[in-house]
């Protein structure tokens, strides 16, 4: 992070702390894309995203005075958003309703690019169905590392755990997903397309 970017963050936060709506808007616009993408990868759907994104940023603004400028503002906001996601996953009385990723009206294809896209959509849907079986902490660790692509050290920082504990959570989650995949060929092919192709060719 450059000094200029850092100072820019400091200045923006100071403006936000004075309650300036334009600054609030600017901070939201700067970070909403990244936060939304991460939350989407955790939840797999936009169904409750309005509430969650809103709550995450309200928490950000409520806690902004606590940003000590030690971490980058983006990392700090991500941490707040992850906590909001954790609360959401822990407190909901129902499972996350993954949006239907299949287009009921679309003609079904068994071969070609359309069939591949359909398979991918089904695979994603089944992956998130499998993620429903994980604890909130394990789901966060797994999705942030495996899907969002964050290093384990960063995930550990975001979820407030040690790297070792985070690594263990990711490993256990992966084992559970692989177990689900063993019983679900669609999920299995989505997770490991190469293995699925070689199995088909062998038969």
């Amino acid at each position: 992070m450059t000094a200029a970017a850092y100072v820019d963050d400091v200045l923006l936060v100071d403006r936000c702390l004075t309650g300036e709506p334009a600054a609030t808007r600017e901070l939201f616009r700067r970070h909403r894309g990244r936060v939304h993408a991460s939350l989407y990868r955790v939840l797999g759907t936009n169904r409750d995203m309005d509430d969650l994104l809103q709550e995450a940023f309200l928490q950000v603004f409520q806690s902004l005075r606590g940003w000590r400028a030690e971490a980058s503002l983006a990392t700090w906001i991500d941490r707040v958003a992850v906590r909001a996601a954790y609360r959401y996953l822990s407190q909901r009385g129902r499972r996350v309703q993954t949006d239907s990723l299949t287009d009921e009206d679309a003609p079904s294809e068994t071969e070609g690019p359309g069939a591949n896209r359909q398979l991918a959509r089904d695979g994603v849907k089944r992956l998130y169905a499998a993620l429903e079986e994980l604890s909130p902490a394990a789901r966060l660790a797994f999705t942030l590392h495996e899907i969002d692509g964050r290093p384990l050290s960063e995930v550990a920082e975001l979820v407030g755990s040690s790297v070792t504990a985070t690594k263990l959570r990711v490993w256990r989650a992966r084992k559970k997903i692989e177990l689900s995949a063993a019983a679900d060929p669609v999920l299995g092919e989505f997770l490991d397309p190469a293995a699925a192709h070689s199995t088909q060719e062998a038969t």
Partner: protein
Amino acid sequence: MKLQGRIPVEPLDDDRLVRIERNIVAGAAERAELAHRSPRRLFAFSAAALAAVAAGVVGYALHPGAAPTTALTVSPPAALGAQTVAVSTDSQHSTLDIGDATITSDPATHFEVVRPDGGVTVELALGKVELSVKKRHDRPRFEVHAGDTHVVVVGTKFSVEYDGKNHVDVRVTEGIVRVERASDVAKVAAGNEWTSTGGLIALATPPTPTDAITIDDPKLRDHHATAPETQHIEPHGTGDGATTSVAAKHPVDPTHAMTYGDLKAAIRQVPVHVVIDAGTTDPQAAISFYVGNVAHSDDYGVKRKNLYSMAVVQHLKLGRDAEADHTLDSVVERRGGDEYAAGVWLRLRIRCLAAIDDRCRQVARQYLDDAPNGPGASVAQRIILE
């Protein structure tokens, strides 16, 4: 298992984003307001009636010879709405503290204070009020209405006297007010008086000069601008207002117009407040030093000192004026401390050396409001008159 990049993120549509943003902005403001709204501040206005009653009691006690009748009446908020207080005095003074201003009234004065949309309007029906108003900054306007004359306050001490018919007298002891009457607008600075019949005149006994540093530049003194407001401040064209300086604290010869070059020279001669010693002559290294200090301090005062120092380096050493101006956002965001006035001056220096335009004048007004006795006060006044 390779999942990174394989889960497409479905974007939120614009309507949803706009709705979320609106809720966040509203929610953030609400939470910020709750955090800043102290019970005392809320209480201040609601208790204004009580304060006025207390003042009346004090006034009565101090004036035992006064008529034993109820000389002061206060209409409590409940009678006029939660945001309205009416005060009426017969034979004594009253003092009304509404939190962001103190209003002292003479005997035989009738006025009402209302708060429209966060602003304050004092409706003076008759008599004289003296006001001490805290800086308004970006808050809604504070106005005194006396008949068809409106006095707009930025943050100052002044009085308004109204005979209930057509004579209004505005006297300013600190800061500047703007008087609006029909199509006329006059700025009345400290040490001046404006009357509805006589326009702007200097007070016979202007405030004692302060320790403001006057620039020792003969050109400046000789070339002080002729006040363009003179046409406004003398609505009836009665006198020698054309030679009356609005800046009575810094009397100058108004016979010559000041050139921009003179003004720039004057701006440059005002000393820039001292910066933190970064222990280096390399501007970039100095900026890194200041950034590091900002990062490692929880103290806003320390952060501000360093940000101010950084802005000075950006402006004076690197010539990166836009960046310096941007850095100053944080320095001047909160009032108080040496760096605040210094930051406002630095911003004035940056903007006004570029051009004497609205942005320059805006910060000049801010400087005069916040540092009326600061080292650049006389220059700021001249900028406003340009």
